[in-house]
């Protein structure tokens, strides 16, 4: 009996001809159910859908469970595990050396809000083009679950220890300091995080996303304020976030009264359907005030808190050449003999 050869349909590809498999990384070694794995999946989906070439992405991280996660997505992108809390310096160097790279930084609440705080604040105030994600679980998972600086007042450890220090709100800090796209999401909110990541890819400047990402081993119990259950009960989205990339020629009517549309640097459109009537994500002062109110009320506010696609990035401010410094020929990067002679003469 003759057999009919069955042909496997070719994998679905994105606008640059790559399949979603081309955006995958190694197999995760994080705990089953860890929020970080869900974030990795969202990054893969967002990069795939936006058609970002993996070779143009530089993944950067510090130390911690979060910082291990770049191994689990985008295996065709260069990646660098920096020293604990020092990823911003490495990222700044990488972006300045090659401005055509898309920097994707993955940090944790410990890596950012304690040991890395000094570097974090200077990264935010520079508006370096980078997507900086904090995978925020409120504890140090790799060292057996001690509270981090983002743990909420009154949150309880498995051992019964209560946190009696107020949390650092990394979003309020980032807005105050000068980051130009700031939001908070939840690893369990697939739709919101996905839209925010796609908008982040279209933004030019510092994107700071604090993503609450429960630690199933050390911080997912009754009394924790960073557990799946707590987030499901207390998540207060400011908006319904959606994103229309520049390459999708879709015209959808929207009601300016109920929806804020922000045109991103590349012409993409970020749409925020207001769930709070008077919230304006382009008003820095109000954003900070609203975040402070959320602390008073015990809400976990999520959504895009602040966006400003028009602010000059650090690369713009430095006025560096369009061609990446890393690829400039020696004839261009080495000043002429007369330049050195002039400098020497001035020092006589």
């Amino acid at each position, binding site marked *: 009996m003759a057999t009919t050869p069955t042909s496997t349909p070719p994998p679905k590809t994105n606008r640059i001809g790559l399949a979603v498999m*081309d955006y995958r990384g*190694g197999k995760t*070694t994080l705990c089953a159910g860890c929020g970080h794995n869900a974030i990795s999946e969202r990054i893969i989906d967002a990069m795939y859908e936006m058609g970002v070439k*993996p*070779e*143009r992405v*530089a993944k950067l991280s510090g*130390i911690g469970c979060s910082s291990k996660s*770049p*191994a689990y997505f985008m*295996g*065709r*992108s*260069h*990646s*660098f*595990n920096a020293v604990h809390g020092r990823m911003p310096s490495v990222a700044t160097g*990488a972006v300045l050396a*090659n401005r*055509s*790279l898309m920097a994707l930084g993955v940090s944790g609440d410990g890596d950012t809000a304690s040991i890395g705080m000094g570097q974090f604040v200077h990264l935010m105030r520079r508006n370096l083009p980078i997507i900086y994600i904090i995978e925020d679980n409120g504890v140090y998972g790799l060292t057996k679950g001690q509270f981090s600086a983002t743990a909420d007042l009154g949150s309880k450890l498995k051992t019964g220890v209560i946190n009696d220090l107020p949390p650092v709100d990394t979003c309020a800090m980032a807005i105050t300091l000068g980051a130009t796209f700031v939001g908070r999401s939840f690893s369990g909110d697939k739709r919101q995080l996905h839209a925010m990541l796609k908008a982040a890819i279209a933004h030019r400047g510092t994107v700071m996303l604090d993503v609450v990402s429960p630690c199933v081993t050390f911080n997912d119990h009754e009394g924790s304020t960073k557990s799946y259950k707590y987030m499901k009960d207390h998540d207060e989205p400011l908006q319904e976030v959606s994103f229309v990339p520049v390459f999708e020629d879709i015209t959808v009517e929207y009601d300016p009264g109920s929806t804020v549309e922000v045109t991103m640097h590349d012409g993409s459109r970020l749409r925020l359907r207001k769930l709070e009537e008077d919230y304006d994500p382009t008003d820095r002062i109000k954003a900070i005030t609203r975040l402070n109110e959320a602390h008073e009320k015990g809400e976990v506010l999520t959504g895009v808190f602040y966006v400003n696609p028009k602010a000059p990035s650090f690369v713009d401010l430095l006025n560096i050449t369009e061609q*990446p410094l*890393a*690829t400039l020929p*020696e004839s261009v*990067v*080495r000043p002429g*003999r007369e330049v*050195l*002679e002039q400098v*020497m003469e001035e020092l006589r």
Partner: protein
Amino acid sequence: MAQDAFELAEQFQTLVFVMSDLDLGMNNWMADPFKYPEKPIKRGKVLGKEDLDRLGGFARYKDVDGDGIPYRTLPGTDHPGAAWFARGSGHNEKGQYSERPDDYERNMERINRKFETSRSFVPRPEIVANGKSKVGIIAYGTSHWAIVESRDQLRKECNIETDYLRLRAYPFTREVHDFVKQHDRVYVVEQNRDAQMLSLLKLDVEASLITRLRSIAHIHGLPMDARSVTDELMTMEGK
């Protein structure tokens, strides 16, 4: 020196520390005008897209030619096989996560080979020797001019002829080992309490030569003067 430091960093794919001290860093010093660099910048073993097309790929930490220095690619290289992961944990030659003891050992041995290779590339010491002195002095940094003057004092005041090696780099080059071998007593003059350079030399020279090394450590926080070196060396020489 800055150019040398950057080139060594690129060639050996490692950090290079340029040592200074308080005297050098905070006081004004005269220097000869810098010479214009004529040679091309050395970037070390970097593979580009064309190389990867030809080779079909590469292993980031594989020592292909025995010097301990593997090939690398730069971020942004437009080839699907160009990426590598600079990870903080144990890894194999391809940069993949590994907890295998043989992978770890192979990497440690490779780094050791790289360290040994670097001895032939770092700046060599400056040596002033007459071939007859039994006493040698090793110093570095701003101790230099005090040593120049101290050697004159030692010659004039107690007829001690000394040879002098001014260190310019660590790891130590072959010349440093030879210098210790060629002298009965070697005084290591340095400006720190714990005689740190002497300790590094003790780890590096043959065991039989360790007893030749002596310490003159200067720790009062002021620029080193010749007299204090001369007096201490004379005392230790029994003069």
